[in-house]
């Protein structure tokens, strides 16, 4: 019984620190995101937006795809490191990092989403 209580305590603490909110670009732009915290953003990489900066650093824009309204709000992402193989302009993407401003995210992780027609298995 003691074990369960200890576990519960650990869980609560760890969870509080490690739950990251997930946004789409429109929500971020509307300052729903907390600046300075680590968040995840899912959207589509804007075509023509990928720019290589110094060394392994790249910048690109993420936007939401469906409506005209949402497409206006693109978030700039800066990432230093290797991009995953599935990363492509015009493809879905999820980035995780610290939000610097309503339109700029410093990414620590870039996760490309799998095309629904490809179904990788465990």
């Amino acid at each position: 019984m003691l074990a369960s209580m200890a576990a519960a305590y650990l869980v609560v603490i760890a969870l509080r620190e490690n739950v990251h909110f997930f946004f789409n670009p429109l929500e971020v732009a509307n300052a729903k995101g907390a600046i300075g915290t680590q968040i995840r953003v899912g959207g589509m990489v804007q075509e023509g937006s990928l720019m290589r900066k110094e060394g392994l650093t790249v910048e690109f824009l993420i936007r939401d795809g469906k409506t005209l309204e949402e497409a206006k709000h693109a978030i700039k992402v800066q990432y230093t490191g290797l991009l995953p193989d599935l990363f492509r302009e015009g493809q879905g993407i999820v980035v995780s990092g610290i939000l610097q401003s309503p339109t700029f995210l410093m990414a620590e992780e870039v996760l490309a989403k799998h095309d629904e027609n490809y179904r990788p298995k465990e």
Partner: protein
Amino acid sequence: MLPEIGLFCLILALCLAVLQCALPLWGVLQHHPRWMQVARPLAIGQGFLISLAFFLLCYLFSVDDFSVLYVAEQSHSALPFIYKIGALWGGHSGSWLLWVWLLSLWTLVFTQGSRTLPRVFTARVWVVLGVINVGFLLFLLSVSNPFLRILPAPLEGRDLNPLLQDMGLMIHPPLLYLGYVGFAMPFAFALSVLWAKDIDYPWAKWMRPWVLSAFACLTIGIALGSWWAYHELGWGGWWFWDPVENASLIPWLLSIALIHALMMSDKRALALAWSLLLAIMVFAMSLVASFLVRSGILISVHSFANDPGRGVFLLAFIFLLIGGTLLLYAYRAKQWYSPKGLVFFSREGMMFLGSALLVVAAMTILLGTLFPLLYEAMFNDKISVGFPYFNKVFVPLIVPVLWLIPLGPVMRWGENTTAMVWRSFRVLLLLSVGLGFGIPYLIQGPTHWQVSLGLSTGFWIILGTLKHFTHKTAYKIAAIKHLSLGAWGMLWAHMGTAILVMGITVLSHYSIDKDVYMRPGQSLLIGQHNLLFEKLSVLEGPNYIAHQAHFLLDPALKVSTDLWPEKRIYIASASRMTEAAIASIGFGDIYIAMGSLIKDDYWSFRICYKPFMHGVWMGAGMLMVGGFLSSIGRRRRVS
């Protein structure tokens, strides 16, 4: 014609499965031996039919029969032969057929293994297995039929996802599933026990070999998945606390708890209700794991395409089966429950504590994995749970379990005094902590306490297990020959755990990951090793084109190693793939994954130094061996 035959076989198997539920049930209720015995031939018949269907599908893949929709989706004529077979379980319907087929293999083993067991007991087990099979086959035939046709047939298939074109695909899913479905056997046993009133069988003894062998399969299945991710994904990582990985870890942890609970139940008739509950939980979690992967409710690199229709069916089946079982448990568990309780400071106390902690740990992983779902259901907001949560919660829970490992075997059943235990262990404790802190200090000076803790834990387990063994053989070499397989199994498994723990400890603290960009001629220093980027070439493979880099590890040494990382583009699907290059140094690895062309002739690379990576693989392998040895060992003693 052939696909229709395959389909027909499955339908027939379903009919037999229904009979397998009904007839032995009738036999049990009416005390009619003949009806009870009919289960065995029915099971054999199902096994035969399902195998036939499975091999037919293999054949269809091997001859590129694109008139079958599933073959067209998963395969391609240019695919190397071995991956055509692997493609069979590359998508949902085929992999479910694999699941069903592997279950039929376990049942076939049971037809032989049950010959010495009491008739009524086995009849009940057959009924339960029949119900499970009916559910699985219905699921297969209704929403995951691999034999669907597409007419007219396309000229070419869509090709197997390049990520899957690796040896790992050939063995990881089959072994993993073998583990998952293997837990259906102890589950069926548990149900059979709960169903009966006033039985006197040593059911715990019978259950153990099944749990142990399924555990061994699951261990190697998970380890292979991890190894495959390490090789294929190009990140140098081997465990991601990914929802699907977690889903497989939960039954694994629970099965360890079950194995030890069964030991107590078998040898001392203790914690019987707990064993039964665990047996139910392990299989339930295996089913939930398969649900999580196939329903698409959790996003992961592993999940199948989103198909809620399948999810509902599977969930309904799980709900009915497990829900019903738990109700039965609630109703009948009382006869197995002894209110006396356990003596805490005893072998059984320690074992029980260990298994309880394992269950708690498994539940925290489940919570962490499902928390996004829970949060969204309550607050309609999307979140994700980060990697550190799992480490922070799981590790503190598992470390006590690890420290309990040597305590159990050395302590006595029943009462132990603290003085006695202290006397047995004080030297060991000093040694373990000494080694754990001393060795790193000697090698590199002051070390992080977590490293020392991890190493101490490993030494503690190793020394403790050795101590136990010297006890058992009373310090006589000759006595080693007479140790039972079960004892050897324990030795391997516990030692394997120690190595695994030490491997993970060293890896977590000392692995180095660097993202760099280099051009041919440049070299890099990592972990006291030199890596020289020699040159870049372009290659053509059977179904891809590749850029290949040539690296030399420690070129200055007499014996230097070559590494050939590649970046491939698969022609049919125009997708990119990384083929990482791995070179072993001692018990660790140097890992290189290619990125892309940066500018001019500079390419980006992820280069990792992974010290004692092999500890993880060796530890897992030893656990598997231990599991298998123990499962055979038991059988020998019974006969």
